[in-house]
């Protein structure tokens, strides 16, 4: 264990604040969280926030304003390790899904009209790794308590986080569930990061992909498979886009190229 307590900061950018809320909701472990590390900044939980050097910064949310971008660049400068927590920070969240730049500008105008932004200039929403180097990704919408606590415990003991990188299907088979995809149900298990304990398929509910995509998510193959099972193109695309953030944009671009 490191001699001095790690200095940890918890930050929220654009998102529902669900990940920070989940940390606060770890009630029986809160005392342990606050004693195992020195929590330098955590806006949702405390008022005396310090903005100095950090060992670890946990960052929730996507970047959607110029001000957030500056804040993020500042966090990166101050922190030895940056951990993206939750779907918005990891992949951009629903607000970053599947919009090209022109479409986004059109939508911005449609919603806000021709106004001068006084507070901070809006940016097209992006995951934090669009601007800074991210050392670790803690996925989930929101993140899971068990995975957060074990990641946190490893960090304060000086160990790097060790997260599952394989898809939900592996955990689903550990639970001996019958494959829902094989029953012609639109399940995103093969594309989605494990760590949730396959909680939905354990109750016969298909995976909706809320822990975001795996590195190797084979959307093309699953897309054709679902098409063969009779699902509508738009239904498949929308389901895949929900929690994939900007990762799905790459897929659709590649998909368009393949179609040509």
């Amino acid at each position, binding site marked *: 264990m490191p001699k001095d307590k790690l200095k940890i900061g918890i930050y929220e950018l654009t998102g529902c604040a669900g990940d920070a809320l989940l940390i606060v909701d770890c009630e029986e472990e809160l005392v342990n969280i606050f004693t195992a590390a020195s929590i330098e900044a955590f806006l949702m939980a405390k008022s005396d926030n310090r903005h100095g050097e950090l060992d670890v910064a946990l960052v929730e949310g996507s970047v959607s304003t110029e001000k957030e971008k500056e804040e993020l660049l500042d966090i990166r400068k101050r922190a030895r390790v940056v951990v993206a927590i939750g779907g918005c920070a990891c992949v951009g969240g629903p607000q970053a899904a599947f919009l090209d730049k022109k479409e986004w500008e059109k939508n911005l105008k449609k919603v806000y009209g021709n106004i001068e932004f006084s507070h901070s200039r809006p940016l097209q929403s992006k995951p934090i790794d669009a601007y800074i180097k991210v050392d670790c990704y803690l996925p989930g919408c929101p993140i899971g308590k068990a995975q957060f*606590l074990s990641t946190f415990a490893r960090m304060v003991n000086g*160990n790097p986080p060790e997260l599952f990188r*394989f898809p939900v299907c592996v955990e689903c088979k550990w639970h001996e569930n*019958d494959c829902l995809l*094989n029953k012609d149900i639109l399940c995103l298990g093969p594309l989605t990061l494990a760590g949730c304990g396959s909680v939905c398929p354990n109750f*016969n509910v298909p995976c909706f992909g809320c822990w975001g995509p795996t590195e190797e998510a*084979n959307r093309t*193959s699953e897309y054709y*498979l679902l098409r*063969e099972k009779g699902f509508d193109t738009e239904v498949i695309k929308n389901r895949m886009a929900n929690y994939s953030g900007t990762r799905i944009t790459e897929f659709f671009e590649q998909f368009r190229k393949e179609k040509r």
Partner: protein
Amino acid sequence: MRILKLQKKDLFPLLKVISREAELWAPTAKGDKFAYGRVLDFSRIAMDAVRTIIPPKKIMVPSLFNMFNFTEKGYQEDLSHVTDRILFGIHPCDIHGLLILDKLFSQAYLDPYYLEPRKKTLILGLSCLPDAYCFCKSTHTDIIEEGYDLFFTDLESYFLVWIGSSRGDDLIRLAPDFFDDKLTEKDIQTYTKWQEKRDNAFKTTVNFTRMPDLMELNYKAPFWEEVGAACLACGSCSMVCPTCNCYNVVDKLFLGNKPGKRLRHWDSCTLPEYSEVAGGENFREHKSQRLKLWYTHKLQAYVSKYGKPSCVGCGRCLVTCPVQIHVKSVADALEGHPVEAFWKKFAQEVSK
């Protein structure tokens, strides 16, 4: 070896007597499939279960379990999954699967986490009739000569019960009155007819004697790229395979001075991180390379070491892979036969 006769009506009373000795585990219904589980109510035993979703390896090495608790002072082994068990209803293919795991887990380093529960588990096999996906006749694992304590062959109104070990004999001695050791000519005829019926019931065949050479000859065959492109890298083929035994070990830490846990969980060589080394280099970056490894192990490498494939023909990969990459479709591709599988259609579709 002795063969005895047991009337069907006497099966549950027999199980009642012997299950006083150890936990009784058997296949039970799970949705429209089957799963091994501990059985207290014998009517829940699925006598017609062709295959369970996960093979009985899960009883010996659970999918995820704690190997030991540790603190800064030392460690304390956790063998809580080790208990006396009687495994009833296990078919010949799965018994062969365990015999293969026995070899793999007792090489240079004996693996107590597998071997201890294995030693404490009595194997009570049960005969079966193949469905469309079974191909254990091709792997010669349709019959069993070793690896069981008792084996029950279901002949409609009665069982013929093979005694395969002294421990099996001990079980018989707990309730000798249920058994009849006088077999008639008619019993032998009934058994022979049943064997013929079973032999003729197989729909799926794979020529395994050709596979080692065909794997070598097809090492650079283009179809590996096709299976790689369609593979969802979901790892299910390994999870459901009775002979896949790879695992990963991770330390789970807790806050508040609680001991840590060294967890062990099933892994698969088809997953990208399996062949990744320090520094992020990956020896098998592409799925096609990983699948080739999987099939090399099943169809070629194990043959050169032990003289037979490490596939037992249980058909689980056939019913599990969502994109139909399995021993049958890959064997067809290796033989240059037409392949009817999603991965082949997918290859044709994307190349359009």
